[in-house]
């Protein structure tokens, strides 16, 4: 725990130290170095807590106003903390290379200041054991991430995204405020826990019993808005693309997990009721389908990734929902597998999505082009980025033999068992979860095959894509490390699941034993993975052996004899996904605006293919309406002092009437 304290201290001191130096290189070196060092320091105790699930606690005597600030790591915290710290450290290394070309345009201090604060805050959120401390870390996380998102604030779109994010996270935090300040509040919320805060020490209030359902709803809204739960997650597709890519990686790979973490804590601490599970399943399924449908309708790579983050958050919530149902109906198998699936998927998605964002960032860094339909053929020019991106894309679609498949398998098995159990309350929800899972997997495969194909394969569609160049080493190294993790997570999936089950064991007795067959299944699956790798290698070798010495020619694409087309005629991402997106346009809105040629001498016609964000538009319309109505009230103060005196007199009379009646 000394190490953990050092980790926090390193983040905070590094944040301050990064502000000091004048020189750009020194500041970024200090900032990035501090984050990496802090992550390494924090990883040791976190990893230790994984193997010895009782974990440890650190209580530092913090003078008023906060009372005692107490941190603790148990298995669950560790499950979240280990990937979080690893990703933050890698993203810091990447970020140093990513921001290197901005020397002279801005000071390096602020970005690294906020980055380190964000790191410390996220670590705190995952380990806080005290409602006020949790709130503090939560708000710090929201603020620092806001400033990181607004790093490119010269761009109006970025400012808009930042504003949306700030408002959304503030409204979400309001619910957490209530959750954490309820009389008798503790974290994780155990009903009737003693209230060791200012209120009791001063007011001597007696805690009132709060219904568990209310606590669940508060947590669902408060944490769900951060997890990107539809319709509260409207900020996500706006904010993640706006941030610099290494920050997007942290936001998508780590920060939205804090929401999942919070909901999981509540579900493990309180006795769930069936309707909790149904709520979670409904919202989770909606989020997942909506997210992947939105991903199909995008035209910018980073926006696509953001929408896919929503989808995966939805999948995690599906797992949580199944787990909650399992606990509610007292079916520990379903509970263990559901929560386990959520945890495993959390780990996998963290790795894949950060890698994808890093890849997208390196393409953006090399070409300066966000729109996929202007890119193409980048693979040849950026081999490392392309290869790592392909690996991550395969992983995130839940395809064997990578980690994504493992989480899909566990979730699917959980649903299957829920279906086959003689428990009438479980079957329809499990079936729905299963259907949503498969549907999303298929659509994600479509989206990412299209994205990878359009951006990295084929011929360059424009100048920018032709002059692409591979990113510097500082950016390549983290991507390579993460890419190595992708197949590794597939092979080591049984270990990950076992760790998750061990972490859950305190809350769900015998979770390990219940999940053992599934771990067994994953182990067997890894054999098939081995066979697959062997066959793939063998076939590639065979192909080379066959082709050796034969005449292997290179020509134009045959394309049924239609020679020499322009590069722009290639299938674009929007055309690739259009048929599928059309099937879901009820959710995502029209996937394109077509202006037809008309008249004898038609003016220019065209087709803009991007689906609108119906949730966001809905919210904006609502807020605009309220805003207008309130602005009408500005008439109350028109500057006539007579009227003002009248206000005073009226108030006086009204209050007198109230008082003397």
């Amino acid at each position, binding site marked *: 725990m000394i190490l953990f304290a050092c980790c926090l201290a390193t983040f905070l001191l590094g944040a301050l130290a990064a502000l000091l130096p004048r020189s750009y290189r020194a500041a970024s070196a200090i900032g990035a170095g501090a984050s990496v060092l802090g992550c390494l320091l924090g990883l040791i105790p976190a990893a230790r807590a994984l193997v010895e699930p009782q974990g440890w606690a650190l209580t530092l005597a913090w003078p008023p106003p906060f009372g005692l600030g107490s941190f603790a790591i148990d298995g669950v915290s560790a499950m979240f903390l280990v990937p979080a710290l690893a990703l933050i450290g890698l993203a810091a290394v990447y970020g140093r290379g990513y921001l290197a070309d901005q020397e002279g345009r801005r000071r390096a201090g602020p970005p690294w200041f906020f980055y380190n604060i964000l790191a410390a805050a996220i670590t705190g959120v995952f380990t806080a054991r005290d409602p006020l401390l949790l709130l503090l870390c939560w708000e710090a996380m929201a603020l620092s991430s806001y400033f990181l998102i607004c790093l490119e604030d010269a761009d109006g779109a970025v400012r808009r995204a930042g504003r949306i994010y700030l408002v959304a996270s503030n409204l979400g935090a309001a619910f957490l405020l209530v959750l954490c300040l309820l009389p008798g509040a503790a974290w994780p919320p155990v009903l009737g826990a003693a209230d060791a805060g200012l209120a009791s020490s001063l007011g001597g209030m007696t805690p009132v019993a709060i219904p568990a359902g209310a606590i669940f709803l508060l947590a669902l809204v408060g944490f769900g808005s951060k997890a990107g739960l539809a319709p509260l997650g409207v900020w996500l597709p706006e904010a993640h693309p706006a941030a610099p890519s290494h920050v997007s990686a942290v936001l998508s790979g780590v920060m939205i997990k804090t929401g999942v973490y919070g909901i999981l804590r509540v579900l493990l601490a309180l006795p769930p009721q069936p309707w909790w599970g149904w709520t979670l399943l409904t919202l989770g399924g909606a989020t997942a389908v909506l997210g992947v449908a939105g991903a199909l309708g995008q035209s910018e790579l980073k926006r696509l990734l953001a929408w896919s983050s929503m989808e995966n958050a939805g999948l995690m919530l599906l797992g949580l929902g199944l787990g909650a149902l399992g606990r509610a109906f007292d079916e520990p198998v379903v509970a263990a597998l559901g929560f386990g699936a959520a945890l495993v998927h959390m780990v996998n998605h963290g790795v894949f999505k950060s890698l994808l964002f890093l890849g997208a960032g390196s393409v953006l860094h090399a070409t300066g082009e966000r729109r996929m339909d202007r890119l193409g053929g980048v693979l040849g020019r950026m081999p490392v980025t392309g290869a790592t991106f392909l690996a991550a894309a395969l992983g995130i679609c839940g395809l*064997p033999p990578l980690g994504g498949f493992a989480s899909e398998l566990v979730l699917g098995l959980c649903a299957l068992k829920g279906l086959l159990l003689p428990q009438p309350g479980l079957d329809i929800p499990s079936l729905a979860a299963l259907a949503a899972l498969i549907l999303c997997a298929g659509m994600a495969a479509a989206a990412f095959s299209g994205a990878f194909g359009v951006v990295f394969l084929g011929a360059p569609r424009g100048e920018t894509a032709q002059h692409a160049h591979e990113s510097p080493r500082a950016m390549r190294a983290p991507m390579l490390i993460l890419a190595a993790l992708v197949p590794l997570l597939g092979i080591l999936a049984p270990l990950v699941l076992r760790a998750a089950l061990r972490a859950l064991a305190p809350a769900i007795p015998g979770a390990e034993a219940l999940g053992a067959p599934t771990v067994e299944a994953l182990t067997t699956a890894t054999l098939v993975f081995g066979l697959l790798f062997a066959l793939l290698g063998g076939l590639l070798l065979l192909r080379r052996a066959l082709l050796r010495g034969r005449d292997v020619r290179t020509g134009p694409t045959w394309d049924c004899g239609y020679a020499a087309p322009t590069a722009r005629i290639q299938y674009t991402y929007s055309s690739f996904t259009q048929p599928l997106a059309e099937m879901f346009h009820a959710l995502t809105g029209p996937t394109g605006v077509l202006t037809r040629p008309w008249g004898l001498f038609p003016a220019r016609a065209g087709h803009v293919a991007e689906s609108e964000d119906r949730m966001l538009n809905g919210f904006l319309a609502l807020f605009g309406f309220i805003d207008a109505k309130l602005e009408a009230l500005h008439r109350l103060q028109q500057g006539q002092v007579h009227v003002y005196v009248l206000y005073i007199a009226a108030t006086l009379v009204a209050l007198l009437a109230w008082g003397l009646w």
Partner: protein
Amino acid sequence: MSAAVDMNMLGGALLRMAAGLTLCPLLFGVINRVKALFAGRRGQPLLQTYYDLAKLLRKGAVYSGATSWAFGLGPAAGLACCLCALALAPLGGQPGLFSFEGDLFLFAGLYSLGRFLTATAALDTGSSFEGMGASREMQFAVPAELALILGFVALAQATGDYSLAGILGRLDLARWQACGPVLALTAAALFLVLLAETCRIPVDDPNTHLELTMVHEVMVLDHSGPDLAFIVYGQALKMWTLGAVLAGLVIPARGGEASSMLLGAVWGVAGIFGLAVVIGIVESSMARLRLLLVPRLLVGATALSGLALILLLR
């Protein structure tokens, strides 16, 4: 790994795999013969596909200048996936090489991995035709995969087991008498999926000549030589594997002990070839669907599986 503990079982599984590996190209021959019969032609020799493969393996190759290593990855990965799927598939109620709870997800996942890499390979050529094909393939895959998994889940619900081998191993006459209509519905759904996955009429026409209407064939336009051989062989394997599963469902002849293992395998192979005949009849008796109707067909298949599940749940 319930299958591998017993050397005898392992040997059996390997033998069944070998049968699949050797016999699968014959299916195309059978189908073509049936179609020729209906058309009143003599038709190509039964072993034509073997000749084609041999020829392709002996040829060189032409690669488009636009392509990268992702292009070569497609066919090899596709074939590797089909081989692994074969290793999972039971034949005639006998388990495949590997079997574990939830292997049905892996079974479906392997095919979608192959599909993913084939589609990217198609996009690698930069040809709009092949992009079109890839787009359609990925689109059709969504409902097809849903129908396949839900069908498996229905079978799992009917038999109460989590692994393909377990499910198909328990589907005997008693089971059919118990819940016949459900199994029939599932079988129909799986048959439609098989047609879609192996790109036969009414979903796709393997030997059409109008690129605009092709789905799978147009994706592989640019592949030549060994790559094309891999693809063709992979297609044959896919048909064999899915056929084996379907035959295992519809032919409830089961033999538990080693003596009747052979019997079960023979029944299974017979069933697969019978299925090939049926496919031939379908292909020669009906026309190809309009492209826009294909998704509806597959969603219909999904509905069939779903209906089967609902029937079981109530």
